[in-house]
């Protein structure tokens, strides 16, 4: 192993764009068992603390005229609340805390992951898949509990010609079951790709002639990643709302 690493470095350009995603124990070495505190765990914890700092410490004064922190907290609250209300209607407001939980976790993981040397929990398919499947199963169970068997009308497009309906139903069913996959891979893929590309540009910086270009490219990518971080959190949240709406109002 050591010899191999040395051989690589002697070769000049060294790219390890994926090394940043390695989950390893935060304290010491060893195997990663289910309870080990890893770098991923630490950054999740930091995200939780950041959420706590913004939404609890930031609003501790309960000011009628808000401070800056409280303003941001209220903005986040109003943003997600309005999204849930607009998409799911009044009945959806009951599920607002769950959706807000997902949004706050994703948005803070994404942004904290942009700090140099940070780890991005949401770049891992394990993390996003758990959230996506939680949404998928939650919404499906909720749909059947709320609507009973009539939840299946979601797949029966009554506005289409009768001959087309079975085909459309098949397509609808397939797309329904693909939802959690696309939902999770979209977020993890975006986060992973952006971070990997930045790392690749950083690798090019080893060549003096390309270094300035590399720095410019990293800066540009970083700016793009800031956008992507927010947009992916937004997309994940709004899709969750759309799926929830389907469960609450399955009729087309």
């Amino acid at each position, binding site marked *: *192993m050591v*010899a*191999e690493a040395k*051989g*690589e470095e002697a*070769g000049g350009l060294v790219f*390890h764009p*994926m*090394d940043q*995603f*390695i*989950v390893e124990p935060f304290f010491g070495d060893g*195997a*990663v*068992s*289910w*309870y*080990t505190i*890893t770098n*991923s*765990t630490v950054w*999740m*914890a930091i*995200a*939780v603390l950041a*959420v*706590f700092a913004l*939404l*609890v410490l930031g*609003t501790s004064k*309960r*000011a*009628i005229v*808000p401070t800056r922190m*409280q303003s941001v*907290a*209220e903005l986040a*609250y*109003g943003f997600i609340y309005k999204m849930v209300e607009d998409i799911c209607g009044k009945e959806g407001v009951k599920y*607002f*805390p*769950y959706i*807000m*939980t*997902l949004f*706050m*976790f994703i948005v803070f993981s994404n942004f904290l992951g942009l700090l140099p040397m940070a780890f991005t*929990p949401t*770049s*891992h*398919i*394990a*993390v996003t898949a*758990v*959230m996506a499947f939680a949404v998928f199963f939650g919404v499906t169970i909720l749909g059947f509990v709320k609507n009973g068997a009539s939840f299946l009308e979601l797949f029966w497009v009554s506005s289409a010609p009768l001959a087309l309906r079975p085909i459309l139903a098949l397509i609808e069913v397939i797309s329904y079951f693909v939802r959690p996959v696309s939902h999770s891979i979209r977020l*993890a893929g975006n986060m*992973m790709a952006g971070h990997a590309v930045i790392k690749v540009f950083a690798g090019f910086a080893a060549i003096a002639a390309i270094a300035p270009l590399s720095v410019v490219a990293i800066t540009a990518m970083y700016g793009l990643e800031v956008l992507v971080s927010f947009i992916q959190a937004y997309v994940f949240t709004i899709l969750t709302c759309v799926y929830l709406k389907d469960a609450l109002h399955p009729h087309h």
Partner: protein
Amino acid sequence: MATETTNSDGLADVMGVQSHAPADAAPGMPQLDFTTFGNQIFWLVVALVAIYFILSRVALPRIGAVLAERQGTITNDIAAAEDLKVKATEAEAAYDKALIEARAEAQRIIAAAKADIQADLAKAIADADVEISAKTAESEKAINEIRASAMENVEVVAKDTAEAIVAALGSSADAKTISAAVDARMKG
């Protein structure tokens, strides 16, 4: 040889093939290193539950209350402003009404005063007229008296003079005759 090995490893890594043992430090795509899945899922659930409790127990009710309170304050202030505006309009109307009433009252007082003065004046004129007519009657009476007494005096003087003239002419007549003659003369 070493380079070749690295390349083939790299290719395998890119393909996401689990060519490494779990203990190996550099898997191609750490996302597909299933040995860490349990760990990530466990801590993710812990993190999500923690955030959920922070939000649902503390943060969201508090922010909701603050927003509702602010909305309430704004609504109250607007209502209060509306109230004050209505009050101002009412006050203006009351002021206008009072002004109109005061003007009417003033007109009424002026008319009453005018009527009083008119009545007083008429009474005074009537009184004066009565007095004047009384005075006139008195004066007339006095004049008549004076005239009557003057006529009497003239008669007496005329009789006396006629008696004297008759006596001076050397004839005598009794007083009765003379008096009848003078009376007849004066009437004529």
